[in-house]
């Protein structure tokens, strides 16, 4: 607010001192009064009022200052207006139903509230864990986020990257608009699909202008959108500026080809193999190797085939491995990293990369027409088995090859340590993700039935939600068995938390029976039964709450 000097009569007049001195001081400018006040009226009397006695001058100064202060405050004027932000874009999505609005406020409030009970105890649902599902369902129905909830949503998305895509989709164009005004929410502009900011894709001039002048996030979004519509046009657009892009931008652009990757991208990627930036080269090589028909995949296959061959001695078939002896410039150009991480031999490091980048389709021909399962089952000579199988696992994931993933996983009843492909649960989870959803759930259900829950956590994480019936039953049975075995529920807190989020709400009724506290077996851990009953109560109440949340989000029936 600006100050004005226009005189206003302050009410303070009633309390002012009287006489010539006061008049003289009152006429003094504010700056003079401040100087006198700072230095002291003994040293610098205000308004030249030196003759009025020491206290008189100070008192007159205070009188005058009071007059000035009230006058200044009473005479304030509006400030000049700053430029206003452009209005937020329209969001045509329908608003949330009333009950769901309340629920969202509750979920976000729980996230914001600090402290409280941190651990997984008690019978009440953990609301924070339910936010992702709530957001997913709200987005499924295509609701618009309430305006006043946008700041809390953006804060939630900032704190938890796992929430980001769903929270930003829900926040919509107005959320993105808001994020543009607050530097703390910059991440939203980076990560957003940005569809609200894009010009019409049928307007080549607008597309070209945004591509040349837009912010990085806008350009990434633009490239993605153009590519989804016309891949050729997207590559052409990229080619116009490719040489002048910064290395980290080139990396993002190359990486964006991952979506909808096809043979048509090969030429561009081949060129990128000669890029100045190592990261760009590596990403281009990775993408090319995921194209089984590409020249790079063929080159890698040639190299790999020269290393891995059917064994020629003895009467039983086996796999013979002769790891590469060097990593030449050509290999490096094709993305093979020459220097192994510490602790790994360089020859096995190179071998792994060659096999990983080779199309899996080359192996049946190499091994006399055997299928993936048979090849995986063959013994491998000289202790190369682990290295080779691990590389095949990575290739199956990269090439999204169901047959090989199935073969490398083996039957779910086989203990992980004896499995054909890999003992690593993380790798197995990745292989599982390649299988069709129903098969995935079925495999994990059988795995849990055979081996219990202690190793199932990561595998459960890749199963589609809500869990299919056999998987849900398998997990509940396993929890029940764990309880009967007398252990404490927090040994299974991870799985229990997953179950709360992933079991279908329809299971609630069936689970009710487990919430009772039966008599404790003699060998049980003390008090375990009570804790189990508490954990099952929380499971049931969470499932019930999820059912309520879903019903709150279902659109109201149309009025006639």
């Amino acid at each position, binding site marked *: 607010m600006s100050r004005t000097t226009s005189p206003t009569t302050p009410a303070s007049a009633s309390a002012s001192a009287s006489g010539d001195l006061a008049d003289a001081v009152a006429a003094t400018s504010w700056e003079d009064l401040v100087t006198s006040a700072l230095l002291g009226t003994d040293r610098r009397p205000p308004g030249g009022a030196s003759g009025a006695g020491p206290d008189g001058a100070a008192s007159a100064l205070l009188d005058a200052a009071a007059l000035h202060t009230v006058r200044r405050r009473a005479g304030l004027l509006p400030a000049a207006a700053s430029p206003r932000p452009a209005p937020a874009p329209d969001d045509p999505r329908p608003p949330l139903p009333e009950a769901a609005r309340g629920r969202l406020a509750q979920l976000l409030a729980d996230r914001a509230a600090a402290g409280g009970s941190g651990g997984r105890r008690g019978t*009440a649902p953990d609301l924070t864990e339910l936010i992702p599902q709530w957001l997913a369902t709200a987005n499924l129905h295509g609701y618009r986020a309430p305006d006043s909830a946008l700041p809390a949503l953006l804060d939630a998305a900032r704190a938890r990257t796992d929430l980001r895509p769903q929270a930003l989709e829900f926040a919509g164009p107005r959320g993105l608009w808001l994020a543009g005004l607050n530097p703390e929410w910059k991440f939203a502009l980076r990560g957003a699909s940005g569809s609200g900011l894009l010009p019409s894709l049928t307007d080549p001039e607008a597309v070209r202008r945004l591509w040349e002048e837009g912010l990085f996030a806008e350009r990434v979004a633009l490239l993605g959108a153009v590519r989804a519509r016309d891949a050729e046009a997207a590559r052409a657009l990229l080619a116009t500026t490719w040489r002048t892009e910064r290395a980290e931008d080139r990396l993002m652009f190359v990486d964006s080809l991952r979506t909808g990757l096809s043979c048509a991208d090969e030429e561009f990627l081949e060129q990128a193999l000669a890029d100045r930036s190592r990261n760009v080269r590596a990403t281009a090589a990775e993408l090319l190797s995921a194209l089984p028909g590409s020249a790079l995949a063929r080159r890698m296959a040639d190299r790999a085939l020269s290393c891995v061959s059917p064994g020629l001695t003895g009467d039983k078939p086996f796999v013979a491995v002769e790891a590469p002896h060097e990593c030449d410039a050509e290999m490096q150009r094709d993305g093979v990293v020459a220097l192994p991480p510490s602790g790994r031999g360089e020859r096995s490091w190179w071998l792994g990369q060659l096999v990983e980048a080779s199309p899996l389709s080359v192996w049946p021909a190499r091994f006399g027409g055997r299928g993936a399962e048979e090849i995986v089952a063959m013994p491998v000579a000289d202790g190369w088995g682990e290295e080779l199988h691990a590389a095949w696992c990575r290739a199956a994931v990269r090439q999204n090859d169901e047959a090989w993933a199935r073969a490398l996983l083996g039957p779910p009843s086989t203990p992980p340590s004896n499995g054909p492909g890999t003992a690593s649960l993380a790798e197995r989870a990745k292989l599982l993700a390649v299988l069709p959803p129903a098969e995935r759930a079925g495999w994990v259900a059988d795995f849990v039935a055979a081996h219990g829950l202690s190793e199932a956590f990561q595998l459960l994480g890749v199963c589609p939600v809500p869990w299919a019936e056999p998987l849900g039953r398998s997990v509940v049975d396993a929890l029940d068995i764990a309880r009967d075995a007398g252990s404490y529920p927090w040994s299974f807190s991870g799985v229990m938390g997953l179950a709360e989020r992933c079991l279908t709400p329809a299971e609630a009724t069936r689970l009710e029976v487990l919430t009772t506290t039966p008599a404790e077996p003699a060998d049980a851990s003390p008090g375990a039964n009570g804790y189990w009953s508490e954990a099952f109560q929380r499971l049931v109440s969470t499932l019930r709450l999820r059912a309520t949340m879903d019903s709150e989000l279902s659109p109201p029936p149309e009025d006639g």
Partner: protein
Amino acid sequence: MLLTDGGEPLGAAAPAARWTVEQVLALAPDDASRKAGNKLGASASWSDTGLDGTGAVWGLCKGSGSKPYRTVVDTTGPAYRCSCPSRKFPCKHALGLLLLRAADGTAVPAGSPPDWAEEWLAGRRDRAEAKARPAAGGDGPADPVAARKRAERRAERIGGGARELEQRLTDLLRGGLASVEQAGYGLWEETAARMVDAQAPGLAGRVRELGSVAASGPGWPVRLLEECALLHLLDTAWLGLDRLPQPLAATVRTRVGLPAPAEGPPVRDRWLVLAQYDTPEGKIVTRRIWLYGGESGRTALLLSFGAAGRSPGHALPVGVTIDAELTPHPGSGRLRAELGERFGVPEPAGTPPPGVPVGEAITAYGRALGDDPWLESWPVTLRDVIPVPGVDGWQLVDAQGREALPVTAAALSRPALWKLVAVSGGGPLTVFGECGHRGFDPLAAWPAVAPRAGLAGVETVPLI
């Protein structure tokens, strides 16, 4: 059906207001109970819940013990009763019960209260009636002569304090403010203690404030001179109290710290709760609740205080409308009021104040200074303003983009302020707040859109 003393059935016709989740959460005394209550609001721990037309809600909540807690809330108060041992107020069970009702319209069915709830509710009604009945012995003190003598003695002590303070201020100005920067808080603390001895808490509070001004960064000499001058103005006003016109004298008495009882005819209106916020001041918490009466056009302030660890007495959910009588206190523009009798149950929404343009808001503050030169700010509602966040501060700009009010620095630290921008979406809205010489402190906003279906008024968005 129990009757109020007016013979009017308590909210028999009107459905009890269902508070929103935000409104309930705002009642929580702290974050921990907010979180704990939140959990209970979504859980199956509740049984035998119910509500009736008078605004009572009750239920049994399963705790860790064998007996469930009995929780009952009178939403007209709001007042709470729970058999749990918590010393928080309201406790997590009361919050959970209200949240259960807020989040799910069908979770709490209508019914009549069980005995244990009815007992407490009836007791409340009886006390309310007793309070509303005029006291048998009249309002005056038992011994008016003694009371007048006490008041005179206190006025004399305050006068002594004011003279002493005057002396200290003139000493300070003679020596110069430059010496203060090194002196620190000790100087002011001692003077403030002298003012407490002189029974002038208003003076003591202002003196204590001076201590923080000297440490408040660039420009402190100007602010310190302003505050010293206003304090001097208050001293001299007190010392010349009998020469002041009546309303100004009342303001001076209030500013010095003499309690002035609410007086005059009560104003009955349908009051919209605009804002509620707490400020810690030393060992006590001051709660301010702003109300706006749609019919009288008055804005009123309810003040209540809570000692350490206890919530202040009043709690009203922002955005509801209550039908009640308010009795104003004299002085300071008669903003401060006491909540008197309440009628019926709160309604969930209301109509915001009509609002004024930016220029008029500043003028309103300037005019109010005429009645009370010590005013820091004045409650105003701005019409059609657009919030403009900026690196160097925020503004509220009028819809034509001509005039602006800066937002106070104090408000900028509040995360809820971003709701203002979110709700505006770059368009004009109505904003209530405190307008003063430091700028505008936004406390509530109303979007420009039509009210949502099913609600009587426009939804109030709290900004604090």
